[in-house]
């Protein structure tokens, strides 16, 4: 087994364990911390894939900004241990079966198509960050400008939603 394969399996195990822990934890703050483990493991996988800019953005935006927002809201609302009714506990077993079937079908289908993909040998000359910036500001410049508008609308919407109504 080569070194990249070992690193892949360690990070993949970390991600899957984090995702299972997200499901098993009763308190939402523990689930949030498990999700941060998944995101850091995925950032490691992106580095393994040679996507260093995406890895950095994953850590900064997902692990930093979005998860801090989640933890902040959990603490703001003083969220307690979640409660399950007997019906929602019963739904767990058939739900698990269906999800295993779904993941199996999806994995089998796209793994078959991935096997047909001819892996292009990486030249290693062109930096992926340089290529991404060229693509964003040339080919995808209109979608890029639209995302700034989307963020503006989202910030306005969040402010309007969360403000206290004046009496």
């Amino acid at each position, binding site marked *: 087994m080569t070194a990249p394969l070992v690193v892949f399996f360690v990070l993949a195990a970390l991600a899957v364990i984090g995702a299972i822990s997200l499901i098993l934890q009763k308190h939402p703050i523990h689930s949030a911390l498990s999700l941060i483990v998944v995101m850091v493991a995925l950032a490691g996988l992106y580095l*393994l894939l040679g996507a260093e800019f995406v890895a950095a953005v994953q850590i900064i935006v997902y692990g930093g900004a979005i998860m801090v927002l989640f933890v902040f809201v959990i603490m703001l609302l003083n969220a307690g241990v979640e409660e399950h009714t007997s019906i929602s506990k019963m739904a767990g077993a058939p739900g698990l079966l269906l999800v295993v079937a779904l993941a199996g079908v999806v994995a089998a289908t796209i793994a078959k198509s991935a096997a047909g993909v001819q892996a292009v040998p990486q030249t290693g000359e062109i930096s992926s960050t340089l290529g991404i910036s060229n693509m964003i500001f040339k080919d995808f410049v209109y979608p890029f400008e639209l995302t700034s508008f989307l963020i503006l609308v989202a910030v306005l919407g969040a402010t309007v939603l969360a403000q206290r109504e004046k009496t």
Partner: protein
Amino acid sequence: MVPTSYYVVLSAILFGLGVFAFIFKRNIITIFMSIELMLNAVNLAFVAFSQALGKLDGQVFVLFVIVVAAAEAAVGLGIIILIARNRETLNVERVDLLKL
């Protein structure tokens, strides 16, 4: 060199765990976190195929997905705060105003 199919299978497993968390969890914040988990799983498939095909389109798409996820988190958490304030619960089973 790790085969692309390994990444794709890991992505499918993470997506399945996200779907299960979405239907099994009862806390609205945890349900929202499982949506983020599903988005992350899709991002992994994007980057894996981007590397396999030697094109950067997939990585650019991942950046757009991350931006949309950030906007979605801001609005979604605003809605959660509103629900918590009006219904005084975070359990989705107690948010049943439209139920007969």
